[in-house]
């Protein structure tokens, strides 16, 4: 009898906990999705519906006029292309250099602990401390307002974190796999590219996503180091907030557009991010 009395009680309690969990998750999902929804909807709302009371949840007459204005009149498309070029190049450079440096530090102890810490300490430096010297140097080196200049800066500022992410990853990789490759007849360089790098792919993918998103959303350096040619997407948003009022539709249209590459990249590397490649390599 005692058993039959406790079982319904336990079921009731579990159901209560489930409901609470669903409620919490629901609140969280609303918290995350509503602003995104509002942004997307605002980008296709007519101007009169922006701040209407009661709020317009879906416009009666959707429009793409904000998209054409943001992309062409405000040169959002140029900013988007510049951002794509700069972010892609900086991502490739930072990931490749970061991988090489991290491998060297993890396998050969290059520079000892001091180098590892020095690399990380670069992140302690406030950007404002270096932006003015960089501005002056770039002007005299003809790197001001160029893609190359921005790519150099972004590679430099994202390298510490990509090195550290890869360093942690390579240190976890069992050394015996590379030893086996060396005995099997591979050179150290081949062992790196044929064994260590494929196994570190999840770490490399994570570092690449991090670098891309960091560069894609960076505003401060782009604002100071670019002008009419190499300006990136975040700097375009300045134009939407003026003395005359805010261009909510255009801002939301460009924000929606800027989400697309990040989401595409996320989907592309998701498989690598969750894949545990070392599974089964060593003792079971």
């Amino acid at each position, binding site marked *: 009898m005692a058993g039959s009395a406790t079982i319904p009680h336990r079921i009731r309690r579990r159901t209560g906990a489930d409901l609470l969990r669903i409620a919490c998750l629901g609140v969280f999902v609303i918290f995350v999705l509503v602003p995104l929804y509002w942004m997307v909807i605002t980008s296709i709302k007519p101007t009169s519906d922006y701040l209407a009371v009661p709020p317009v949840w879906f416009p009666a007459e959707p429009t793409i006029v904000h998209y054409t204005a943001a992309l062409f009149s405000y040169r959002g498309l140029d900013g988007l292309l510049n951002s794509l070029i700069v972010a892609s190049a900086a991502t490739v450079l930072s990931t490749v250099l970061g991988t090489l440096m991290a491998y060297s530090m993890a396998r050969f102890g290059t520079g000892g602990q001091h180098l590892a810490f020095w690399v990380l300490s670069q992140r302690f430096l406030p950007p404002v401390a270096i932006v003015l010297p960089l501005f002056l140097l770039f002007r005299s080196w003809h790197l001001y307002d160029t893609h190359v200049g921005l790519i150099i800066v972004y590679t430099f500022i994202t390298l510490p974190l990509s090195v550290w992410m890869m360093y942690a990853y390579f240190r976890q990789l069992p050394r015996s796999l590379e030893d*086996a*490759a*060396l005995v099997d007849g591979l050179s150290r360089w081949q062992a790196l590219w044929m064994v260590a790098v494929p196994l570190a792919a999840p770490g490399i993918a994570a570092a690449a996503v991090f670098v891309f998103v960091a560069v894609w959303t960076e505003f401060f350096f782009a604002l100071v180091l670019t002008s009419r040619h190499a300006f990136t997407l975040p700097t375009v948003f300045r134009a939407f907030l003026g003395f005359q009022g805010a261009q909510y539709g255009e801002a939301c249209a460009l924000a929606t557009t800027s989400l697309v590459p990040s989401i595409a990249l996320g989907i592309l590397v998701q498989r690598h991010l969750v894949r545990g490649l070392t599974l*089964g390599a060593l003792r079971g």
Partner: protein
Amino acid sequence: MANVRISALHKHYGGVHAVRGIDLDIPDGEFTVLVGPSGCGKSTLLRTIAGLEDADSGTIEIGDEVVNGMRPRDRDVAMVFQDYALYPHMTVAGNIGLSLRARRRPRPEIETRVRNVAEMLGIVDLLGRYPRQLSGGQRQRVAIGRAIVRNPRVFLFDEPLSNLDAQLRDEMRGEIKRLHQDISTTMIYVTHDQIEAMTLADRIVLMRDGRIEQQGAPLDLFEQPATMFVAGFLGSPQMNFLRGRIVRSADGAAVRFGEGDTPLPFPPARALAAVPGGGEVIVGLRPEHAGRGSGAAPPPGAVRIEAEIELIQPTGSRSYATFRLAGQPMLAELRAHDVSRPGERVPIDINLGRAAVFDPQTGKAL
């Protein structure tokens, strides 16, 4: 195939002197087992032979060619690792064939050789699978396949069976022994398991603290250990070590284990001339050198005592009885179906003719 000669080899790891002046000559085709406790330097020695570690001093010759400073790929050795070290992103065929691809062999040749090795090891069905889809024993076979596919001059094994369960370990041990019989390539095998060492080796090299303690045929080390360390390391259960004093009489040497006890005589062949009368010794007796006495008199060469059994440990094929000899614990081997009980006083026959006798100060055999 090649011989391996190591001369005055030293290797430091940070502050640790891991290998201290090893001299070792391994003839072509021999199965040599490096055995010893953890940290004795056996794996370091093996990795130095493979070229994965550089020697601090001394030389390593493979096939009469000095290989110090040569890259692992140029030494033409193959190695099987303790954790198998299979490449998880490659199939079994990819794993086995990598060394041939690295040497740029033509594709048809690689396929044929991989297939031949897979047939030899009974893993043809697994060629398309990934390591994560294999059991422990299958992974071990793939690791061995990867080593034999390119006919290296020397095989190196670094504790290859230590991650397998007991049954599989016995099976794979047999396969490695058969493999050596089939291909007769020089093999150097590292283990801390004395049973593996005894069953596999043509020659055992027993290491301790970076030095070779003793080397020789397995039974020679087992029967004639040079030191107490060797005697205690080989054999399971471990050899009994009993302190005693030598007593000399007209009949020859005897040993007294406790004050006032009757001295137990050694057979005439064991004169122990180096030990003076009254000299302290440690007598090493394996459990199988002591057993339950039956009949009116002990067999030739043995002496009979009477002792109270403290503990019985049956193992199935035999049982071990613990008793005390002059207050010192000792293990004796009984037949599997012996009916002795703890607390019972029974006759025990001790075969002192097969005892090892050691100097208590140096631990060396007398």
